[in-house]
């Protein structure tokens, strides 16, 4: 693959049971970074502030062997969303996680991520939101079932 098309060269991913577990591992990584190189890792907190696409997780850039390595921390729920979206991205040759793709699809995926986050926090997805999701799913269906168009 051409270097210019690569999203990253190296990385690390952990799929964890819950958000508190993600925070615990985040703290451990930060502690290890402070001890080893005397400063904190750069953090992109997509749980606190999800990407526009709906992507959620915590990314830390750590230094390993003098190189920047991205560590991705996700819960299983966040992982389910990301895996499904990566699968779909491959099919339509888009970058849905990065917010690039058909508008109908992006809108549905973002709404699905919100609903999944609500349930992950132990709350109930209200009927209005469920109805909106049904509508958005209907609009996105040609892309979901047909893949590339």
């Amino acid at each position, binding site marked *: *693959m051409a270097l210019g*098309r690569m999203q990253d060269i190296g990385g690390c*991913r*952990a*799929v964890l049971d819950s958000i508190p577990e993600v925070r615990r591992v985040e703290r451990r990584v930060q502690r290890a970074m402070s001890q080893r190189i005397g400063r904190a890792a750069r953090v992109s907190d997509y749980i606190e502030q999800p990407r526009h696409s709906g992507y959620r997780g915590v990314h830390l850039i750590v230094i390993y062997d003098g190189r920047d390595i991205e560590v991705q921390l996700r819960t299983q*729920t966040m*992982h*389910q*969303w990301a*895996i*499904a*979206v*990566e*699968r*779909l991205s*491959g*099919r339509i*040759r888009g970058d849905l996680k990065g917010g690039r793709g058909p508008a109908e699809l992006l809108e549905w*995926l973002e709404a*699905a991520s919100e*609903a*999944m986050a609500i349930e992950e926090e132990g709350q109930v997805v209200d009927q209005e939101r469920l109805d909106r*999701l049904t509508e958005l*799913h209907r609009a996105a*269906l040609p892309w*979901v*079932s047909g*893949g590339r168009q």
Partner: protein
Amino acid sequence: MTDKTIHHVLLVFDHEAGKLIEQRDFGTDSDAAVAAYGEKEREYQGLTSVEIVLVGSDSFDTVTLTHANYFDGTVAVSKYLAGI
């Protein structure tokens, strides 16, 4: 992780066909895994539909979870994402 030994797994995924066309577990032989990765990159150079990934993990089973997008049915699909 239950095992501190890192297994190296090479995956070759064809996005056009929507399937994994090759998977190789090199066990702990990282040199062989990196060499094979380089060979595959050369073999598929210019073919944008083919993605080659080298993953290190405690086991092949873990790879099927962390990189489930390359495998079928290894991660549950949320009811909100049914059909993908």
